[in-house]
């Protein structure tokens, strides 16, 4: 089960509609697909979608760094996933997006060799049905309310709403959505670091009775020392996203009492191996987690769903 070949492919797919967050607008997905082949014929697939403003990686850097990662992993036993991460982290700091593609491909091969679906290989027992939300991009209150109504009509049980503009406009956005769809369908809001701490506290209190499950990353990621103050003043649970990439971040946020929940994305954690450590830390701390991601195809999302 020694890996004899890695192939990295750039993959571009246009989006049906622009995806708008407080971090910017995307109209096309630019991902990297990885195929790993072993000496015994087993083939594993991986994928990553580098998000420039969160990962600090692009499709081009993933291909360039991926070539170096491939060289350091060639000849390795695909089942030695911990060893693969040690080699990758020794070679180059960060670059969690492209490292996640390698992590997924190695897990694919190792689970195939074990004869198990990936979720069982990861310790899961039952194949339960999962349920996803659907996201409303940032826009005018009227546009966001119309988009939310379409999502309800399409049967989604939860709606995620991108926020993170001026506080007053964000409050109007949620008001408009609630006036259009009523109060039954729960919302999740995501400020993508768009507020300062005082604005976050003001907006979250104004939205207290709007049936909101949680708020992702209310303030800039580098202000993580302020997160506990926001959490303690907020009637809505705080979920760390950009401030929680790998297990070291999770450990720090737990020690700080910074949030109630984590949003795990394989492209932030460097793949399944470290994501599982985040989940274990959350279990110990009695915290809940969300499994999310970037704009990957169903390939990387299949890995995320196995982890869920």
């Amino acid at each position, binding site marked *: 089960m020694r890996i004899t070949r890695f192939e990295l492919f750039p993959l571009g797919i246009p989006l049906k509609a622009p995806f708008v967050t407080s971090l910017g607008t995307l109209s096309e997905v630019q991902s990297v697909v990885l*195929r790993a082949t072993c000496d015994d014929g087993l083939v594993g697939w991986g994928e990553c979608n580098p998000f420039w403003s969160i990962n600090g990686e692009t499709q081009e850097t993933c291909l360039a760094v991926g070539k170096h990662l491939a060289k350091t992993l060639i000849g390795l036993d695909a089942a030695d996933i911990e060893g693969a991460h040690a080699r990758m982290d020794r070679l180059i700091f960060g670059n969690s997006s492209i490292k996640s593609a390698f992590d997924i491909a190695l897990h694919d091969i190792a689970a195939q060799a074990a004869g198990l679906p990936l979720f069982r290989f990861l310790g899961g027992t039952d194949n339960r049905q*999962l349920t996803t939300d659907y996201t409303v991009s940032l826009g005018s209150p009227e546009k966001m309310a119309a988009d939310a109504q379409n999502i309800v009509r399409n049967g989604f049980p939860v709606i995620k709403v991108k926020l993170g503009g001026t506080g007053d406009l964000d409050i109007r956005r949620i008001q408009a959505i609630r006036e259009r769809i009523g109060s039954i369908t729960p919302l999740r809001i995501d400020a993508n670091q768009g507020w300062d701490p005082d604005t976050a506290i003001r907006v979250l209190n104004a939205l207290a009775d709007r049936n909101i499950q949680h708020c992702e990353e209310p303030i800039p990621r580098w202000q993580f020392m302020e997160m506990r103050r926001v959490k303690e003043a907020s009637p809505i649970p705080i979920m760390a996203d950009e401030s929680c990439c790998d297990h070291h971040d999770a450990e720090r946020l737990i020690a700080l009492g910074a949030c109630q929940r984590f949003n795990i994305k394989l492209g932030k954690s460097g793949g399944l191996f470290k994501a599982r450590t985040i989940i274990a830390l959350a279990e110990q701390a009695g915290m809940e987690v969300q499994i999310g991601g970037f704009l990957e195809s169903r390939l990387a999302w299949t890995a995320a769903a196995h982890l869920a």
Partner: protein
Amino acid sequence: MDGCGTPGLTSDAVRYCDMDTPLMLTSDPVRGGILYGPEGSIRVPEGPGLGASMDVDHLDRTTRVEVH
């Protein structure tokens, strides 16, 4: 109850799934893999491994980076 409906596959700590972006793409180059059903439901494949692969016709072999 919540966005996952039930606790997740590998841990009861997993309570929420935010997995909608493949539904936003104009094409789907993946063979196998998770299946999206009505009301936001997702089914995870039960074959060995990931259970998903890429349709190689969608991949540009001319820009491929190969290490062996």
